[in-house]
């Protein structure tokens, strides 16, 4: 836990350093923009003070970190709202997407990996492995473009973009609308996510199938089906779960690209907008929040071992 908080602290230091050394000056870059123009003098004064020229970066960092600690991530320059509020809204949108993609890719990937690893080199294995390798080499945004072309432009069965229909009041948006607009992005993210977990599960599965205990199970007349059910599933599930929790970082990265293509108003799109528009407070806020998720995933992955693996649960320190 302490390690995680420390890492988080360093993430914010690193992110802050990176945006500070940038030759792109946030105020300068935004002077001509409506966003800045629409702000009151006080706000601008506060911002100038916040990113004030002449104040050493270390001091600036502690001012920012202090505010952050109190729950104030500053004002988003582009959205003219507190960063916490922007992130709150966007995060909910993105979580929908990512949760669906995460579960789908996890389950499908696990099943494919098991099927593939039962017999290394079988036709099924080669098909699944080939598919995974191709998908792993396919950039998420291009896959998004292709799906968009097929389903939205060509077949016209799904909408082109945005998480809600254009011109409808926020209150008028139905769950059905939301789901309809999230289908393509979620599918894209799932397809991309499957490759990794499939390949990993497959490797583990091959390892298990070559293990001494599976050899002995065969010698005892257990059928392939029973070997998979009795031995393979339980031995492969743990590493697969661990990987899935540790892969939150990749789903996050994928969502940035996919949201951009579908103009889905989530955290990823906000990050891109913030980066392009030099909205430094928002960019910093998103970085820290996403790091929280990544570290949280890693933490859960580590804890899972303790809960599920009897060698750790019952054996104390024996690994």
């Amino acid at each position, binding site marked *: 836990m302490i390690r995680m908080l420390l890492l988080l602290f360093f993430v914010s230091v690193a992110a802050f350093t990176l945006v500070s050394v940038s030759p792109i000056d946030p105020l300068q870059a935004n002077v001509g923009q409506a966003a800045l123009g629409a702000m009151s003098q006080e706000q601008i004064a506060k911002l100038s003070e916040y990113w004030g020229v002449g104040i050493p970066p270390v001091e600036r960092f502690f001012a920012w970190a202090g505010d952050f600690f109190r729950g104030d991530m500053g004002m988003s320059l582009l959205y003219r709202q507190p960063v916490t509020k922007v992130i709150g809204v966007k995060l909910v949108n993105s979580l929908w997407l990512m949760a669906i993609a995460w579960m789908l890719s996890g389950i499908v990937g696990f099943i494919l990996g098991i099927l593939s690893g039962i017999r290394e080199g079988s036709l099924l294995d080669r098909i699944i492995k080939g598919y995974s390798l191709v998908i792993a080499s396919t950039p998420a945004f291009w896959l998004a473009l292709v799906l968009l072309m097929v389903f939205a432009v060509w077949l016209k069965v799904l909408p082109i973009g945005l998480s809600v229909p254009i011109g409808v009041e926020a209150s008028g948006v139905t769950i059905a609308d939301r789901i309809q607009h999230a289908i393509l992005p979620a599918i894209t993210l799932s397809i991309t996510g499957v490759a990794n977990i499939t390949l990993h599960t497959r490797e583990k599965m091959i390892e298990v199938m070559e293990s*001494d205990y599976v050899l002995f199970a*065969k010698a*005892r*007349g257990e059928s392939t089906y029973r070997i998979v059910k*009795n031995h393979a599933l339980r*031995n492969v599930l743990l590493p697969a779960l661990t990987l899935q929790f540790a892969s939150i970082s990749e789903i996050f990265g994928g969502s940035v690209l996919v949201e951009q293509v579908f103009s889905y108003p989530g955290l990823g799109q906000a990050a891109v907008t913030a980066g392009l528009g030099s909205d430094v407070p928002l960019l910093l806020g998103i970085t820290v929040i996403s790091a929280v998720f990544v570290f949280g995933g890693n933490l859960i992955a580590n804890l899972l071992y303790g809960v599920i*693996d009897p*060698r750790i649960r019952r054996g104390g320190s024996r690994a």
Partner: protein
Amino acid sequence: MKEKKTVLNIRDFSVSFEQYERGFHKTVLPVIRNLDVTVHEGEMVAVVGSSGSGKSLLAHGILGILPYNATMGGEIWYDGELLTPKRQKMLRGNEIVLVPQSIAFLDPLMKIGSQIRKGKKDKASKARLDKIFEGYHLKEEVQGLYPFELSGGMNRRVLVSTALMGNPKLVIADEPTPGLHMDMVRRVMSHFRELADKGAGVLLITHDLEQALEVADRVVVFYAGTTVEDAAASDFQAQETLRHPYSKALWRALPQNGFQFIKGTQPYVKELPDGCPFGPRCEYCTAECQKEIAYREVQGGRVRCVHA
């Protein structure tokens, strides 16, 4: 002595692997050639050969669980019929059972009880397991343990228990006592002797001649992938009753006979000499030894040597 039924009869058994040498040449590695063994009902036969000579492949061959890149040759007869892959599938784990070397052959994440019962949850298998454990003085709690929680003493009894869930007529024990204390070895061996005395054929695969002589009825000497001699355990009481020079060398290497070792090592499969594999280390080696050598009957045993 009354003629007992033959449980297992292996003739001219061989196992080879394909391998790449440096560059692009594919070669065939004959790890086992000319292996002949028979096991009768109620008999315990030990196949003795030094470590790393591919003895385990014999066990895997009988059970039909050789790795996919291995090719098997020769004939295996079980219970008077040729042992086909189909029969292997049907019989293994029931009539033909394997007792593995160590608990590394148990699933680390499955409890002992359900593991021995192959995941079944019925009452009959539970009752059967309870009875087996009782016979081996294993407490019922052991069924709820994971393999890593077993003590060294429990390990062996648990492994032997796995064999008894079926109705074993042929028990194959593959190096069942690696690195164990002599007391422990005797105890484990007594379990196998018991099985043989109840009527099953036991094939003990080991590198330890001393151990084998203590319990086995017959000893088959295995050298560089070939069986060179098949002798009664009693033949090992004196050097003169043995038939093959390698068996005699093994005899001389026993502690009670002076620990004399012969020079050299077993040839690697790629550098096997023609004819008798023991030729280069044998003091009686002649030109004849470099030809194909028949496995022939000599004084109630069998030997693959022209000079015996």
